[in-house]
């Protein structure tokens, strides 16, 4: 009796590990909510030019210190003589200064919040991309070759790890703000947002490289790797053909976490004045300017901070959901066990 062709209890034919993961994600309501929130925030930021041109009729950096706005018939000053900005006018002035002015310069807070989103998201996503790619590559090399490449990479990572994270980031940010950065042919002018991107990428490499290295060390002992070597596959083919496909789940999970951490670090750096250079808006710089007016206009501090909180929260929930969906071991464990997703009565 040859075994039945239909293996017991398997998913429909052709559904690879990604298929299974996707199906699991679709059923996890918390993850779907987080994804929706993140997409919403991205759209909110991308809509910045539309809102600026059609509703607020001002750019993010345009100052309106002496300007007046028409609200229900009477003219109101954007910034009063003592430098105090107007509070949110909502749609009182046709959407202008929807969330009020950002300080004594009288810039539109809503427009800056949207443009700030663009900057913060851009920096965090790109920095996370670089960190994850660099960390994964270093982890793969160190884990596979072991010996002196592993020691070299690990010790270098130890040094970056030992260097107090924030101190390193501030030092780099400060110094690069003056002279800019020269990497081979590429020169990054000092004010550009690529400086914080480079700084954040370097600082977080260790957080990705180490776990990837650990996973490669264990994957490397598995028999399917030995089978590839037995067929004459060279190191490159083993690393990228056999090991890398198994690392994607870790890499993707770390990418989401890196985006979250990059956003937090970017806002800290901008708050300390060594991240995004004024007058460009980023949620971090907005908290910095806002915090000087925290007593008289607390909203100017709470709003950008809340935006960061929501974005990072969405990313963390997404990261968690992805980790459980992609992690083969947890097949039965989390969703059904934790009751976060509905246990299914009928087979799919």
């Amino acid at each position, binding site marked *: 009796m040859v075994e039945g062709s239909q293996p017991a209890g398997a998913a429909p034919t052709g559904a690879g590990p990604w298929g299974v993961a996707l199906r699991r994600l679709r059923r996890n309501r918390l993850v779907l909510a987080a994804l929706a929130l993140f997409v919403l925030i991205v759209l909110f930021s991308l809509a910045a030019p539309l809102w600026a041109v059609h509703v607020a009729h001002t750019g993010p950096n345009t100052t309106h210190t002496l300007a007046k706005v028409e609200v229900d018939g009477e003219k109101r000053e954007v910034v009063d003589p003592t430098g105090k900005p107007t509070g949110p006018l909502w749609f009182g002035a046709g959407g202008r200064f929807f969330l009020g002015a950002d300080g004594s310069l009288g810039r539109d807070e809503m427009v800056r919040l949207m443009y700030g989103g663009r900057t913060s998201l851009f920096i965090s996503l790109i920095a996370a991309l670089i960190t994850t790619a660099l960390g994964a590559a270093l982890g793969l090399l160190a884990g596979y070759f072991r010996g002196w490449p592993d020691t070299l990479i690990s010790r270098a990572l130890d040094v970056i*790890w030992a260097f*107090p994270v924030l*101190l390193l980031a501030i030092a780099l940010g400060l110094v690069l703000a003056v002279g800019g950065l020269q990497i081979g042919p590429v020169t990054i002018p000092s004010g550009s947002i690529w400086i914080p991107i480079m700084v954040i990428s370097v600082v977080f490499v260790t957080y990705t490289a180490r776990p990837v290295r650990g996973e490669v060390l264990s994957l490397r002992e598995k028999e399917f790797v030995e089978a590839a070597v037995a067929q004459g596959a060279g190191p490159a083919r083993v690393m990228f053909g056999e090991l890398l496909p198994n690392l994607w789940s870790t890499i993707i999970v770390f990418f989401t976490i890196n985006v979250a951490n990059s956003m937090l670090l970017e806002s800290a750096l901008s708050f300390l004045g060594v991240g995004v250079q004024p007058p460009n808006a980023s949620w971090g710089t907005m*908290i910095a300017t806002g915090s000087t007016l925290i007593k008289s206009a607390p909203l100017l501090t709470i709003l950008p901070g809340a935006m960061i909180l929501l974005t990072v*929260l969405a990313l963390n*929930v997404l990261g*968690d959901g992805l980790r459980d969906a992609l992690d083969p071991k947890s097949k039965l464990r989390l969703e059904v*066990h934790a009751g976060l997703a509905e246990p299914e009565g009928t087979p799919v």
Partner: protein
Amino acid sequence: MGRFIVRRLLGMVAVLFAVSVLAFLIFNVIPNSDPAQRMAGRNATPQLVASITEEWGFDEPLPQQYLTMMGNILSGDVISYTNRENVDERIVEGVPATFSLCLGAALLWLTFGILFGYLSAVRAGGWLDRVLTVVAVTGISIPVFWLAAVLLNYLSYQAGIFPSGGYVGLTEEPLDWAYHLLLPWLTLAVVQIGFYSRVLRSNMLDAMSEDYVRTARAKGLSERRVMTRHVLRNSLIPIVTLFGLDVGVLLGGTILVEAIFNLNGIGQYAFESLKGLDLPPIMAIVLFGAFFVVLFNALADIAYAYLDPRVKLEDSAQ
């Protein structure tokens, strides 16, 4: 054990050396203004700048400057460029505030992190687990400095429940000491409580599917005893290592919280020196921070070997 200590000490010295070289290079190789000019002030004349350069040896080759700097740091009489005062004294003065802040916050997040992690693991899937999960994930996502500013504004300036920052010595008035540190502790701990409870929860859920837990139940132990003596005990081992690493890193960088709550600790001193591009204190503080990171790294390994008899110290020394 001795072998481990010797290897780790050498490792530490090597890492600290590399960290000091990195810090030195960042401020010297990458272009910024010449320290002599900064010290000469606004009425500087070329002659004054020249004599400052000569006095401080800024014209000497970089390796030479590095050696003199490190010599001063290790012998304890390194002088800051901007206000020419003894850096080591300032660091020593900052130690009580930074240590009280870090260790207090660490204690806070360890207790609540473990409590929340344990509860959400034991009642996995229940409403308590979902609530604690949301609280934990939100905790991880809060920008620390923003939380500090908001708490300081609402709980101190507006409501006046808490003092508006400042550090009171433990030996002077212990009660006041704690009263002044409550908000800073809370700010630092919130993020970590979220993180630790998440890690402990996932460790415990893994441990629950281990064979020895099934054996424990088969022995007729009560559920509570199985959960504490077996599941929790094994899941705490990675937490101890994580704690060792986090405290080390923390001691190096409590810049934001100290600055906002004006605790006058090492973090704040580091931030002031950074803003002034004042290399001597930056080097000293970076080394001070790195030392603790590496030290706690080693302590974490020792704790791991102590807690898990399978791990021998020698092979964890690589």
